């Protein structure tokens, strides 16, 4: 694996994962979605947040996997966890109980208010594409104290209007959550492969607050399906440190080796 896949020495996806990892604190209790959130959470654990509590919906609490899980229920998660509970308990005592500080989600379709669709493309009853659905996300989105979202930008993914409200973000914006009686903060951070976004305090529309190194406003707009708002003062995301990059790449290399190792000699 090369350290120089881009002129900058890191890929946009690596920047995304590392920027997301930095948002997590040592005392966070994080409900981890699979994919990009999982990588970010484990990089955080392996760098600046060694005591972070990672929870996967399979029931594993306080887990510390050496490789990234392929699914939310890998054996590695259980073996390294503080405790492993049944799934009803996970959703009742731990998520609904209000114990999760950060719910970390990916998205197939996202709108500017942080509403997520992972259910269908097209009409629900006559879908063009049937996606896997919500899984734990509908309640992660409303029971976690805050929600972080991470996804690679694309016009197909970041859209003006999502086809289905799998998980509720800020709805139509403003105080829509409060009007529905939802007392948690909802999406407070979006990390893409190009930028860091935060919701406007009033309208709740996601606004770019930081561009990743080398990224232009135009690139962000061209890969987003809505008219992008930028903060008045726009930061540049600090580039990944050597430690961060090495940690992420080592983790991914271990993961690749481990997952291939269980196949029948065929390439995964």
């Amino acid at each position, binding site marked *: 694996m090369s350290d120089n896949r881009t002129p900058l020495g890191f890929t946009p996806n690596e920047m995304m994962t590392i920027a997301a990892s930095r948002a997590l604190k040592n005392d966070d209790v994080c409900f981890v979605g699979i994919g990009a959130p999982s990588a970010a959470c484990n990089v955080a654990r392996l760098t600046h947040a060694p005591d972070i509590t990672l929870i996967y919906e399979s029931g594993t609490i306080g887990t510390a996997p050496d490789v990234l899980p392929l699914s939310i229920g890998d054996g590695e998660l259980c073996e390294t966890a503080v405790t492993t509970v049944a*799934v009803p308990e996970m959703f009742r005592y731990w998520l609904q109980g209000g114990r999760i500080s950060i719910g970390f989600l990916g998205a197939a379709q996202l709108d500017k208010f942080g509403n997520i669709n992972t259910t269908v493309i097209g009409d629900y*009853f006559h879908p063009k594409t049937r996606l896997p659905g919500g899984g734990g996300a509908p309640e992660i989105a409303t029971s976690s104290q805050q929600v972080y979202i991470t996804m690679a930008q694309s016009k197909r993914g970041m859209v003006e209007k999502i086809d289905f409200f799998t998980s509720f973000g800020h709805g139509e914006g403003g105080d829509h959550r409060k009007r529905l009686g939802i007392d948690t903060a909802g999406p407070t951070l979006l990390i893409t492969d190009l930028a860091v976004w935060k919701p406007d305090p009033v309208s709740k529309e996601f606004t770019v607050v930081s561009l990743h190194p080398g990224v232009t406003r135009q690139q962000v707009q061209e890969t987003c399906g809505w008219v992008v708002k930028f903060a008045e003062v726009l930061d540049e995301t600090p580039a990944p440190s050597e430690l961060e990059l090495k940690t992420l790449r080592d983790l991914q290399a271990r993961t690749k080796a481990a997952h291939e190792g269980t196949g029948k000699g065929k390439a995964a």
Partner: protein
Amino acid sequence: MVKFLPLKQAVAENLNNGDSVAFEGFTHLIPTAAAHEAIRQGFRDLTLIRMTPDLIYDQMIGMGMAKKIVFSYVGNPGVGLLRRARDAIENGFPRPIEVEEHSHAGMANAYEAGAAGLPCAVFRGYRGAGLAEVNPNIRSVTCPFTGEVLAAVPSIRPDVSFIHAQKADRKGNVLVEGIIGIQKEAVLAAKRAVVTVEEVVDTFDDLHPNLTVLPRWTIAAISVVPGGSHPSYAHGYYARDNAAYLEWDEIAADREKFQAWMKANVIEKGADDFAARVEHLRKAA
């Protein structure tokens, strides 16, 4: 009272055309051998219940056995979509299929309520979620103390539940350990429960008292099927066959390739074939 039976007989005695049935396992201990036996016996018009329908429900749906599916995540874990399920939902192939969709919280609470003998589960869920608008089985009750409106879903009470577990003792008590998922609830919620196990041991006398043990009188039949949850894994016995999950994506993408694979790997095979499938995965467990 529990009977130890060959899998063929355990499935034949407990599953019927038209049944509502749960083959449960939350990424771990998936009862593949039992599902394949049900496919070989060719049941029809099943209502398939599961939080995370994966390969086995893709296979049963692709074989036209399901009239309805109740689920909360219809994906191939860690890989992507389930292409036979998609074909049924999007194109009605090989037959149209009715869909009842929940969130994980909804399904987990519904199983819990089923195990608890309640008609419905009450929890805080589906707030702002689109599912509440498309699923008429998502309703509400009002807390008589605070006035808060809570979600309610019907409890899940399958005619039959199938699970795979690590071991039984000779009396027929069953141990599930590791990621225990929803298996205890699936068994206790069902009218009848069938369990495949990796092995039978003399007694459970040395087990810690607080482990998840299902007493023998909660189970209708036990079949010993080593490797019976391949390609998923059995904590303490063998690792997940990740390659098989990745391969499935290709197999299920094509209707004819799917049929050929099913013929070669399910129809013309039996429960005894599972042990060999996990041989190379035992070291990694």
